[in-house]
């Protein structure tokens, strides 16, 4: 017990008894999760298992019916999405949610403004904020998109947009990063480059990832949580979860 208590201080995310139902249908059914600071956690489960709902509950896009969500020890279940972002939570979306008319650099600048007091500056022209655009190019360089920084987002490929999603999250220097299927719809080469990108995320950022591509996902995560019908079915190390009979039953279909 005391060991668990001391560990609590180091938890990036602690979810207890989380419930969310849509019209009587439970999408998240008594989910509890403990994720240590710096951990790489993979969340798997068949379609409709409630993975994205769980992310939306953690990020604040949905309000939980019941349960607690602690972000680095602080209860955030009643906070708005933007307030949780202010506390170091960043996410990417399964369906690309970017600003197509703006340049890649501008997309990243909007991400940086989210946590900067400059976002309330209604007088100075944003285009004169060379410091912000310089930093944005730096972040884009981290995902290998520096040369495309001035191109409108609508003109870059799907794979590049996925990387912009990640760049925007990284631009916020988050403490906890939620990645919702970062590899969805990518070609084999693109997968490898994004995979390398994810592996390069510094260890002071805790990462929780939903992913279907098992090869990539399994090499990335240390611990895996298997969701099914909104419930945590299996949780453990890579080897434990893969070997578990329930995993084979509900997910691997063996």
């Amino acid at each position, binding site marked *: 017990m005391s060991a668990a208590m001391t560990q609590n201080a180091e938890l990036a995310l602690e979810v207890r008894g989380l419930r969310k139902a849509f019209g009587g249908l439970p999408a998240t059914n008594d989910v509890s999760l403990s994720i240590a600071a710096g951990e790489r956690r993979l969340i798997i489960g068949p379609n409709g298992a409630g993975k994205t709902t769980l992310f939306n509950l953690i990020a604040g*896009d949905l309000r939980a019916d019941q349960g607690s969500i602690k972000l680095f020890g602080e209860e955030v279940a009643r906070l708005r999405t*933007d307030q949780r972002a202010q506390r170091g939570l960043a996410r990417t979306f399964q369906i690309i949610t970017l600003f197509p008319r703006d340049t890649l650099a501008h997309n990243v600048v*909007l991400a940086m403004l*989210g946590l900067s007091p400059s976002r309330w500056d209604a007088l*100075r022209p944003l285009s004169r904020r060379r410091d912000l655009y310089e930093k944005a190019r730096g972040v884009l360089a981290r995902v290998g998109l520096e040369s495309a920084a001035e191109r409108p987002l609508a003109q870059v490929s799907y794979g590049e947009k996925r990387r912009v999603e990640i760049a925007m999250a990284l631009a916020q220097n988050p403490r906890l990063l939620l990645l919702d299927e970062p590899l969805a719809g990518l070609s084999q080469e693109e997968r490898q480059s994004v995979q390398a990108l994810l592996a390069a995320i510094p260890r002071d950022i805790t990462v929780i990832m939903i992913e279907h591509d098992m090869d990539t996902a399994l090499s990335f995560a240390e611990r895996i949580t298997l969701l099914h019908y909104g419930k945590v079915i299996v949780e453990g190390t890579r080897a434990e979860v893969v070997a578990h009979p329930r995993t084979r039953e509900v997910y691997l279909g063996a």
Partner: protein
Amino acid sequence: MNRTALIACAALAALIPLVAGDYYINLSSQILIAAVFALSLNLLVGYGGLTSLGHAAYMGVSAYLSGWLFLKFGMGHLLSAPLAVLGTTLMAALFGLIALRASGIGFLMITLALGQVLWGLAFRWVSVTNGDNGLSGLTRPMPFGIDLTGAIPFYYFTLLISIVSIACIAAFSYSAFGAVLRGTRDQPRRMLALGHNVWMVRYVTFITAGFWSAVSGLLYVYYHKFIHPAALALTNSAEVLLMVIAGGTGTLVGPVVGAIVVILLKNYVSAFVERWTMLLGFVFLLIVLFMPDGLVPGFKRLWVRFARRHA
């Protein structure tokens, strides 16, 4: 629009009294007032993606306040003008709390309802508004002792205020806040996830739009020296929305072009046809059919196509 273009337009506008008679000078004043009014609405419609059908409320209330403060307390313009703008801005702060409980069509309906309430009040609250007779016997201010009775001095006064207003609105739209506002229009959910307080961004914009609308309301009442409930009517809200949409939402030039088109049509055509609003409807229909994103973006596209063909 860049700064040089803005200065060139301002210089051209300053030359109008040299070549035009009083009728056209007054028409130009009306256009400037409508342009500030339309640009204030464009902050909500164009940059915020929040279509308001009650924007006349802020223009009208500011005009009424200015007139009422003069008639009731004999207050000078130096005091009544800031009070009218302040009062109207506070009202926007209150209305924003109500209207921004929704977005999209809900927002439109609430702004419409609030506008209609004020319009009804202007008609019925006779002890304050003088009902259907309106408030008359108002005066124009005399800044630094300059008499603004004539068309020319009033035009230059209006031009000066308009330029300052347009410059401030331009700065607002080019600022970090302006970029964030456009972000909340395009991807509100993403903006929330990035840490932007979308509601607060919209609320600040709502109040800012109310403020500049109040400024146009002052110019409006100074121009007419009279205020009637018609200024608060739905047709006034619809007309200014028409200016914004016809000219091109989310651009700086669009609402100004829209103001020019609507005011000219209104003044020219109403001299010949009683049902000039029908023609206005026709013109609007044509714009929507052939240039759905407005005249300014539409002509820009035509120009690009033309330039490419002849390159």
